[in-house]
């Protein structure tokens, strides 16, 4: 059944259709939540709250955007709110690009991205690096680069201008590359 039909049935109170929509997006929502907070319990909690919001508000869903875009928006807002409430942790400022784009520190890396699934140490490195990134930059990077949304869709979800998305993306990429570079670079003999 087409998603549009499922949404219409769900809006008319069909619980089976709601469950189908949940099944269709639960993995995406869980993964995206995990990628922001890097914690399985918090990701599951965010997934539950996101779908509760969908169930409660499905009648108001007009279909102007994709359901997935709407779900990404709910997850992003939930995670940002949680991050603001959780702690007064301070993050590195990304204002000074010279710290992250240093043309003297250039080397190729000795690990290929294909190794992620089987390498626990590498996963810990990735978790640690992205956790140091301010949550609003983290979300822009994840939406645009990891989930593959367009710059315009990312801007809409985060309620930012396209220029602001590009600026955050630029800094997030440079910051993460810099963080990983310290551990993954190798010097040629």
């Amino acid at each position, binding site marked *: 059944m087409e998603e549009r039909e499922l949404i219409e049935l769900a809006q008319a109170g069909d619980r089976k259709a709601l469950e189908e929509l949940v099944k269709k997006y639960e993995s995406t929502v869980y993964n995206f939540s995990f990628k922001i907070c890097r914690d399985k319990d918090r990701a599951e909690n965010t997934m539950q709250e996101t779908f509760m919001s969908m169930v409660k508000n499905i009648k108001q869903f007009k279909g102007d955007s994709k359901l997935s875009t709407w779900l990404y928006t709910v997850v992003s807002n939930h995670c940002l709110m949680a991050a603001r409430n959780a702690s007064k942790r301070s993050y590195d400022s990304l204002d000074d690009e010279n710290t992250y784009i240093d043309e003297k520190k250039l080397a190729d890396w000795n690990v290929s*991205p294909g190794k992620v699934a089987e390498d626990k140490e590498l996963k810990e490195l990735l978790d640690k690096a992205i956790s140091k990134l301010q949550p609003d930059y983290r979300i822009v990077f994840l939406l645009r680069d990891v989930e593959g949304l367009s710059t315009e869709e990312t801007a809409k979800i985060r309620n930012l201008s396209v220029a602001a998305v590009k600026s955050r993306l630029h800094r997030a990429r440079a910051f993460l590359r810099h963080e990983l*570079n310290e551990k993954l670079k190798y010097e040629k003999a």
Partner: protein
Amino acid sequence: MKKPKLVCKDVMEHICENLGENLDSPKCSTIRAHLDNCDNCQNYFRTVEDTIQFYKNYNVDLPEGAHERLIEFLGLTK
């Protein structure tokens, strides 16, 4: 008028800013020409791409029982 010389830093900033965007502008052609001839910038380009790919490849499975807990939480149990 003589074109200003492109330095590696400009190229690296451009890579971070425009990866995944349309790279047909005249500035992008100059960047590509520089990239073709600069090992340093090629390393930078590759490692930015790898950074993105690392995070793309890092996925987690839904934990066991999470679907059932979700359906119950939502009150959609039969």
